[in-house]
């Protein structure tokens, strides 16, 4: 059984909750075909999130660094897929008895597993080996992309790419395997529940982002005499395009994480995901309007993502009403986090990656322990959330998971950044930063001919 505890739980849940997914139906060829098609559509949707990240990040930074940001985002997709094919997939889903800290299924891809004859036998006949790889592979690069936004406008290209290779090839899959690959977190009595990756994707990226910006330090001119100075992003349309595309892709990110086209679960996930995003928009707008007097578009865009990141862990186990609450809280948190991190902690994160992915990733993971309500939903036989009378068991597991991931990811990212900094340098030279990384790193401009003030 490839997914260890994770998969077993899910299967149990299905068996109980829906008559749809009875044992032998599962293996029907039509079923396989529908489920597999949905998983592939989801993979394509997750893919387009990389465009979302690319435009969001370039929109929120300055025109003189746009080529560099786009370049990083294109490279990361490549790095993510290739390293996942080489070793990531084998590290993340090692098979075996489960409960492990570290296990490895082997290098590369396995033609035998992908053979047509194997299709019905693989993973309960829900999808093929190839689908499994491509869907999971599309997630892999996301963690590095999150870092990319935070370290933007000052990080040296070659060093960052090397960091991404290491982080995506090794840290991401190992940590992910703890929960998704049947590892020790999944094997706890009350298994760790991170539906689509508030922790294993977003906070894994967020911790590395935090480590990165701490090692790098703020952009030139960001803090002057101890006061934070705004460095406005150069294109709000690009940023908005990014957020809409991310939401669009999230239908696959969350919807595909059902790992089948189960009608009830996938549609429930669509509803919880969308309502959380909508609530995140509403409350971040209100918060921004109150705190900043005028409603700040970049904050509302972050609020939307905050809702999405927050609902990513609990999307399949909470009611739509709880989803609204989770998203609403995320929308408030993210605005305050951006202000706090920028002005109080004086950590310079140009796109708010730590606030969105780290802070709200943690929030979403904890929210599972508070709101999990499968019995209420009719999709399971237990309400595990604290607020639904499920006691603290789930919550404790969630907190343990958050802590373990925090420690591992932050420390490892910090060490990798420090070592790379010592060996090859992590930050571009001052003159290059002033003139822009587009000219410095790539010898080209993003908007040839356009008249742009580069006074910052």
């Amino acid at each position, binding site marked *: 059984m490839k997914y260890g505890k994770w998969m077993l739980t899910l299967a149990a849940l299905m068996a109980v909750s829906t008559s749809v997914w009875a044992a032998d139906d599962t293996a029907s060829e039509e079923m396989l075909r529908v489920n597999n098609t949905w998983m592939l559509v989801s993979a394509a949707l997750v893919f387009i999130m990389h465009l979302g990240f690319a435009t969001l990040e370039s929109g929120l930074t300055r025109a003189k660094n746009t080529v560099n940001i786009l370049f990083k985002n294109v490279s990361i997709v490549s790095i993510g897929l290739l390293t996942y094919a080489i070793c990531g997939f084998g590290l993340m889903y090692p098979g075996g008895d489960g409960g492990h800290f570290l296990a490895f299924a082997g290098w590369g891809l396995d033609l035998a597993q992908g053979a047509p004859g194997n299709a019905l036998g693989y993973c309960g006949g829900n999808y093929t080996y190839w689908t499994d790889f491509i869907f999971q592979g599309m997630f892999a690069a996301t963690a590095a992309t999150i870092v990319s936004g935070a370290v933007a406008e000052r990080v040296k290209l070659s060093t960052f790419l090397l960091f991404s290779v290491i982080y995506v090839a090794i840290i991401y899959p190992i940590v992910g395997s703890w929960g998704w690959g049947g590892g020790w977190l999944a094997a706890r009595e009350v298994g760790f529940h991170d539906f689509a990756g508030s922790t294993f994707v977003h906070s894994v990226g967020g911790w590395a982002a935090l480590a990165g910006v701490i090692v790098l330090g703020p952009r030139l001119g960001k803090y002057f005499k101890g006061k934070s100075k*705004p460095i406005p992003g150069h294109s709000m349309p690009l940023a908005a395009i990014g957020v809409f595309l991310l939401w669009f892709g999230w239908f696959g990110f969350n919807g595909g994480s059902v790992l089948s086209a189960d009608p009830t679960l996938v549609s429930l996930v669509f509803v919880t995901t969308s309502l959380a995003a909508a609530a995140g928009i509403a409350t971040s707008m209100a918060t921004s309007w109150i705190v900043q007097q005028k409603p700040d578009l970049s904050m509302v865009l972050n609020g939307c993502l905050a809702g999405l990141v927050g609902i990513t862990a609990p999307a399949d186990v909470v009611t739509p009403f709880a989803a609204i609450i989770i998203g609403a809280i995320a929308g408030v948190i993210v605005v305050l986090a951006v202000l706090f991190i920028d002005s109080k902690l004086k950590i310079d994160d140009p796109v708010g990656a730590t606030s969105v992915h780290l802070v709200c990733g943690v929030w979403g993971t904890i929210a599972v322990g508070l709101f999990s309500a499968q019995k209420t939903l009719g999709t399971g036989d237990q309400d595990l959330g604290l607020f639904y009378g499920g006691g603290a068991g789930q919550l404790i597991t969630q907190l343990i998971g958050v802590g373990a991931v925090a420690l591992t990811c932050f420390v490892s990212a910090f060490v990798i950044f420090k070592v790379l900094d010592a060996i090859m340098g992590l930050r571009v030279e001052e003159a290059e930063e002033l003139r822009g990384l587009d000219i410095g790193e790539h010898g080209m401009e993003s908007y040839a001919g356009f008249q742009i003030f580069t006074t910052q």
Partner: protein
Amino acid sequence: MKLIIAYIQPQKLESVKQALDDAGVAKMSVTNALGCGQQKGYHESYRGVDMEVNLLKKVRMEIAVNDEFAEKTVKAIIDAARTGTIGDGKIFVMPLEECYRIRTGETGQDAIG
């Protein structure tokens, strides 16, 4: 000959052009500028951090005229650009020594018009 430089509010460009045309001045060059004067700036804020913007959008006009046109030109600009509120702009008049028309090589007063 004089070179007249005028900073005006962007939205007044159309009417100033019209007024100059009426005054017989049909040639000019225009650039985009940012200005800082008595007019108070405004506050922007980006991601919660406040920023005072005191370089405001203006349009800069540059008009070379023969001496006898100078006064007319200035008057036309003032009339068309004035709203009476702070930020209306300034006009600067400078001596112009020589003027060439590239197409013909003409110089001086002939070249200006």
